[in-house]
């Protein structure tokens, strides 16, 4: 679809604003609607748009599958890690009051970190799934089954 000038120009114009909007939804979740999950799908949508217009090969240059697969786990680990930190600071698991000296600050930090973990996992999972689906080779799959 790279040869269609309308699609090419529009997707180039839209790519940055979509990511900006995703970041807004991510980090503004404390004040307005949104949060990690919504931000994750919005950011993944920007990359998927790029992949659809500029081919899977270029998308893999922008976001290498190995990095994306690693981010899936890192997001979940950030979430779990916040729990471990509160645990080590003397509170219950995921009790953000123990993240900082001031409990309100602790809650703020906890929620932002946790939402960031969710966003990372959701965005990379969706992107990884898209790349796996788009790069799926049926003949390859059958060969592997026979092995």
């Amino acid at each position: 679809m790279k040869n269609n000038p309308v699609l090419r120009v529009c997707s180039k114009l839209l790519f940055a604003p979509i990511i900006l909007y995703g970041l807004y939804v991510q980090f503004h979740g404390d004040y307005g609607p949104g949060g990690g999950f919504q931000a994750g799908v919005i950011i993944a949508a920007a990359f998927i748009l790029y992949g659809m217009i500029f081919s899977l090969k270029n998308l893999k240059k922008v976001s290498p599958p190995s990095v994306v697969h690693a981010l899936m786990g890192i997001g979940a680990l950030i979430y779990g890690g916040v729990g471990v930190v509160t645990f080590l600071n003397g509170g219950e698991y995921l009790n953000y009051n123990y993240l900082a000296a001031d409990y309100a600050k602790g809650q703020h930090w906890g929620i932002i970190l946790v939402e960031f973990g969710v966003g990372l996992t959701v965005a990379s999972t969706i992107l990884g799934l898209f790349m796996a689906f788009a790069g799926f080779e049926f003949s390859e799959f059958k060969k592997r089954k026979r092995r």
Partner: protein
Amino acid sequence: MAAMFIDISLVGFMLAIAIMIMFSHRLFAIIVMSGAYSLISAAMFVNLDAVDVAFTEAAVGAGFSTVLFLAAMAWLPAEEKRDKALVVLPLMICVVVGALLLWGVMSLPPLGDPSSVVHHHVAPRYLAESYDKLHIPNVVTTVLASYRGFDTLGETIVIFTAGIGVLLVLTGATGRNPSQDENVEDEDEK
């Protein structure tokens, strides 16, 4: 009055799309129409003031799953097979399940009824104390990430596990990732 008009027209659109999907045999048209269906249900969530859910529905339901269906469609014939099997049994099941669902809906409390049970368990406490305790204006976020932090951790793990599972099925557990291979290069240029 205006809200009612919006509700009725959205449900009307959804019904029309559902009926069109039923009678269509071209897979491409069916996929695009189910994307439109998701988009209209996202509009419905906006109408119910659930903007977060609407975001998710628009991005995942209308965007991402449509893209996945289109990717899967590349491996299928363009037309659905028309089989002339008996439709009596499936029709009966649909009618019975639909009637049961309608019967269930009738015993639900009216939408937004402040005296219904779900609004009297922990919700009043969350609404009353969350701002003073946590200083975060959006109650939805505090409930989701702080009060219900464990649930959200579980949800994140579910997404992670589901992603891993699908990736394993598609790319194989052989340690080598066919989607990373070099031989896909020229084929993607279409």
